[in-house]
């Protein structure tokens, strides 16, 4: 468990952030310039905050009260920077082993496992200049993991990459989360990335923490919708693949009913995260018959919130939260109020494979 409570004055703004990051992937989420990178730098020891305390698993990293400040090389933080920052004069193999030179640990099995997991075995003898952007970032990731860190810090590791490269790396990040159990502090301003990876979310705005909690709860909180923007507001729910059907659709079970998706590339019984954007959810009072949308889930209205981007209805779908964005007129026409049973109609397109995450966190760790 990482606990941070720091204050620092910059020429243009003041950082005043306090949060705790339980095991799993904690996403620091907010607009560019909101202070996310400064927080991560303070945790890594690359920046010394004016005031405050940082603690990791009961180990004090810095405390302005006593003047205690652990230098970066003794913190055991694996840092993956936005630009890979590979050492240009070393080969990929030497870059990967760099952290091991100082921890004194030579874990051959660990090395080959990480190299295999990241798919960088064929790059070992190359120099960084001969790598593509995606390859560089994978090597940087491997280098950080192989330094045997207590916590992995990632500062927008995908921001410098194009969509294709992002898609290339995201699965590795998911495997990392699910297979190593290494706690991760992940900085991003891309909601899709967060929805896919995060188990916890810390919302940062203007140098302050404006919300923190489990990803599913934070993402379905109407209060944070303005931060995400209309196009990105949406809840995540957990689903489990039940079967691949003959007509090419995949049947998934959720807490509140069955969902059909275009073929999902995963074996039955895999657990997935589905991201359902609020603008892709319609609300019907009666179960609609003879409708093209395949996915209609029973739900109960939990609350309604008036926001800049319209009326947000939070639904309780078998214990999981879902958001729907409707107009004020529809809300009054349907006489929506907390406790009212409704049906959520999901447009099939909203469940495109791109928004599907991997297995639920806290999954198995490798032997």
């Amino acid at each position, binding site marked *: 468990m990482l606990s941070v409570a720091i204050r620092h004055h910059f020429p243009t703004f003041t950082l005043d952030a306090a949060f705790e990051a339980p095991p799993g992937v904690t996403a620091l989420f907010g607009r560019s310039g909101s202070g996310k990178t400064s927080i991560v730098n303070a945790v890594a020891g690359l920046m010394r905050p004016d005031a405050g305390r940082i603690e990791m698993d009961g180990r004090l990293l810095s405390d302005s009260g006593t003047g205690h400040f652990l230098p970066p090389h003794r913190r055991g933080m694996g840092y993956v920077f936005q630009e890979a920052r590979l*050492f240009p004069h070393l080969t990929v193999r030497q870059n990967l082993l760099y952290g091991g030179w100082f921890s004194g640990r030579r874990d051959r099995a660990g090395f080959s496992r990480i190299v295999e997991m990241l798919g960088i075995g064929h790059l070992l003898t190359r120099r960084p200049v001969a790598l593509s952007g995606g390859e560089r970032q994978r090597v940087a990731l491997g280098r950080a993991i192989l330094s045997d860190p207590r916590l992995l810090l990632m500062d927008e590791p995908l921001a410098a990459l194009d969509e294709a490269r992002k898609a290339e790396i995201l699965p590795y990040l998911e495997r990392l989360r699910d297979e190593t159990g290494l706690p991760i502090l992940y900085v991003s301003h891309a909601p899709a990335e967060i929805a896919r990876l995060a188990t916890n979310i810390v919302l940062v705005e203007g140098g302050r923490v404006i919300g923190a909690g489990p990803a599913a709860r934070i993402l379905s909180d109407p209060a944070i919708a303005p931060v995400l923007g209309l196009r990105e507001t949406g809840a995540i729910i957990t689903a489990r693949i039940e079967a691949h059907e003959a007509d090419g659709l995949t049947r998934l079970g959720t807490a509140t009913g069955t969902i059909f998706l275009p073929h999902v590339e995963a074996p039955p019984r895999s657990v997935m995260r589905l991201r359902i954007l609020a603008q892709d959810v319609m609300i019907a009072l009666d179960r609609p018959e003879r409708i093209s949308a395949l996915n209609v889930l029973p739900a109960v209205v939990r609350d309604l919130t008036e926001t800049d981007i319209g009326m947000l209805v939070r639904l309780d779908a078998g214990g999981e939260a879902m958001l729907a964005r409707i107009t004020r007129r529809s809300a009054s026409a349907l006489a929506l109020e907390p406790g009212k049973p409704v049906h959520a109609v999901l447009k099939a397109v909203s469940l495109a494979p791109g928004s599907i995450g991997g297995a639920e966190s806290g999954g198995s760790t490798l032997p």
Partner: protein
Amino acid sequence: MNDWLSPDEWQAVALSLRVSAVAVLASLPFALLVAHALARWRFPGRGLLNVLVHLPLVLPPVVTGYLLLLTFGRRGLVGQFLDQQLGMVFAFRWTGAALAAAIMGFPLMVRAIRLAIEAVDPRLEQAASTLGAHRIWVFATITLPLILPGILAGTVLGFAKAFGEFGATITFVSNIPGQTQTLPLAIYTFLQVPGGEASALRLVLVAVAIATGALLLSEWLARAVARRIGGR
């Protein structure tokens, strides 16, 4: 070689090589420290240090030589102390010639090394520290390898400058054959005596060869810096 150069001429060449090599090797650690300080540290007196280091480059060499004589001569403040406490004498010895050569070559070495250090991305050093490397190890494993070509280029330039040093040397340690008569001083001396032109010309050729070689080497090393930092 020994047939081509007379013993006197050969003595001057050998002395010059020894003086320049000692000058460069002894001043290299200081040049590295000063270059690093100027490139990376912010401290009071940084501007003054910068001026001081570059002063021998712009002062008339005779002035530098005279200041050395005042400071490191037997009656000089530092010279007297070194003589009495450590038995070290610079005045009118080859070590004095080496000191003069070192002072004159120092700005060139510092400049080359400083440029190389400034070209190293400090974010690489940060990355190394998060991977568990102490500052000293960061310098040894990241900074030093990346600036190595710059260090070599600076060393070559400093060597060439030391090799050609005249004014400060003759003012500080005079012109004693076998002791302080380096190659440029020997050329000057041969030109003062009748029939010395042939000797002078031979030494001039040696000087041209060494200077050209040093320049070519330094150019080649400078390109290697760019390649290495760019990542080959």
